[in-house]
């Protein structure tokens, strides 16, 4: 189970996440929905204890991500949107490497690697070097890395970004499977249709703040809209979406300018 309590993250003057609270239960697919730059990836990084919160807390299976980061990481599998591969390593070697870093070894590691290669349909290219892999192949390897230690909590950042139709279908099937296995699945996406199709519950994030939480049907009904996309626009407000995004980009520019000035 993943829980955030008034989770806040500042990057100097930039407020990336502002008092976000939600709970994602086991056997549930919970979606963080928001435009690019809303703070979704930062929330996921805070939960995976890659970043430390400025205020508030994130709990994974009751463990505080700030205080017990190593134990949290052992219970979390994070698929990073922009994750890369070692080009001179094969998928099997990637899985074995990350397995060892998670403390697996011997026959246990071999079994887990073989199972993942089969589950993620990587058997055909399991021993080929990653150089020249397509986006779909790369995404499968990275997903395998995140799942090598069989984590009860799976965090997926834009899981279907830049994937073709067949790869997207595979990832969706996999998320359904995680749900059936009773894992807690937290995904971030800016694709409304995907969120509506995959998620049991959705949190709408805008400018680092939580705008609404509920099932897609509840949010659609709450906004009196025809679909989740329309509901999202109505909940946040079309005018606010435009002006806030402009203000945010201006704030980022000022932040970068200020950092440059400080460096000078």
């Amino acid at each position, binding site marked *: 189970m993943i829980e955030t309590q008034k989770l806040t993250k500042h990057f100097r003057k930039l407020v990336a996440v502002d008092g976000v609270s939600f709970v994602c239960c086991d056997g549930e697919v919970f979606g963080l929905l928001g435009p690019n730059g809303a703070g979704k990836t930062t929330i996921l*990084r805070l939960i*995976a*204890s*890659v*970043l*430390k919160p400025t205020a508030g807390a994130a709990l994974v299976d009751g463990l505080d991500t700030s205080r017990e980061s*190593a*134990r949290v*990481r*052992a219970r*979390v599998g*994070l698929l*990073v949107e*922009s*994750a*890369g*591969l*070692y*080009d*001179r*390593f094969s998928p099997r*070697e990637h899985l074995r*490497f*990350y397995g*060892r*870093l*998670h*403390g697996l070894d011997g026959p246990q590691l071999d079994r887990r690697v073989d199972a993942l290669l089969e589950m993620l349909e990587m058997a055909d290219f399991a021993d080929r070097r990653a150089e020249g892999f397509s986006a779909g192949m790369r995404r499968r390897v*990275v997903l395998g*890395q*995140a799942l090598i230690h069989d984590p009860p909590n799976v965090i997926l950042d834009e899981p279907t970004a830049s994937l073709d139709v067949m790869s997207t279908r595979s990832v969706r099937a996999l998320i359904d499977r995680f749900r059936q296995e009773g894992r807690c699945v937290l995904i971030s996406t800016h694709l409304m249709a995907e969120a509506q199709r995959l998620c049991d519950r959705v949190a709408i994030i805008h400018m680092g703040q939580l705008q609404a939480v509920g099932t897609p049907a509840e949010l659609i009904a709450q906004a009196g809209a025809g679909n989740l996309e329309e509901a999202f626009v109505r909940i946040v407000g079309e005018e606010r979406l435009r002006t806030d995004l402009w203000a945010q980009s201006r704030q980022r520019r000022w932040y970068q300018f200020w950092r440059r000035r400080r460096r000078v």
Partner: protein
Amino acid sequence: MFRVMRTIFVREARDLLRDKRALLFLFAVPLAVPLLGAVAGVFVVWQIARQAGQGIPILVVNGDQLPGLVAKLEESQVLDLVGMPSDPEQALQSGELMAVLEIPPGTGALLEAEEPITLKLTSSRNGWLPDFAVLAIQGALSDYGNEVLTDRLSRRDLGREWLEPIRLERMTAAPTGVAATAVVASEEAPSSLTSIFLPLLVTSWALSGGLSLVASMTVGEKERHTMESLLVTPASRVGIVLGKVALSVVVSTITIGLWSLDSLGYTFLLSAMSSGFSGLAASFSVQFGALGLVVLWLALLMLPFMTMANGLVAAVCTFAKNYRESGLFLTVLQLLLPGIALLAVFAVVTRPPAAVYALPVVGVLVAMRDLFGGGIAPGALVLAWGAAALYAVGSVLLAAYAFSREWALMRGV
């Protein structure tokens, strides 16, 4: 932690072994350089032998004035004394003649009268053979001059020692310190040049060997977007850094070893060329006999120094946003460390206070200088090594600290 360290070490080593370009730059260059040198040497020797077999054509004008000199030139196996061509100047320009030795008329009489004489030597500008001809002519002139001098001295009942009224017997006082004594005990005591250049060489070796490798292992993780995947594992950050630094130290040691073998190889080759193969054996026994203790101490000092340099580079590169930024940081380091090395070699006095040996970077370099300069106490040597080991641990901890800080790791991610 050691399990993580081993896992990281093995992964990075495997990655390096599969990277042909990196292997080429790190290991093939020091292996290829002596090979190329040997090929070039064989070619030059073959050319000389071929030309010597035919004889290098030279002209002696008025040779009848100094028949003794002409005899010496004829004795030379590489020179071929030819007759007067129709146009000597043209023959020199075309390469038909390699050199012309002109003996002015009346030279024989002047020499007989013990008056100074001047000969004129003009060489062609046709490759390196004229230089070789000039060397052979100078050798013959020197032999002939010695004969004339010995003849003049014997006419006055004088020996050659008459020409050298004062002789200087040069000795070196044995300094304190076990290692230093071993150096000076040998005939081939390292020159002061070694003590000057060694710290500079060690500094550049320590940086050059593992530098690009450390950059690839740290900031490279950011560039490849693999950093976050690594950070999300429960692996100890200290273990990760230790694994990376350990590999870079191993690689640096191997490259330094290869370059050192190159240097030794050239030394032996020069020794063999100058004094035959018995000289080579003597040189070998000197290098591995009397200098053994010094070389051992040098290795002991270099290991923590390299670890410190690699740890420092790892810390800097972990902080860097990308390769470009790490390149800028490393340029500063590359300028700074040799600068400190120069300061250590030239600005620090001989036999400095013990505290100097405990200074970061300077201490080790001064110890190396004094080790080869022949004056360091065992206590100072141990102090320098201990301090260097402490700084090595400190720099690795600094790298581990950078590897556990959000502000360093997430820059550029």
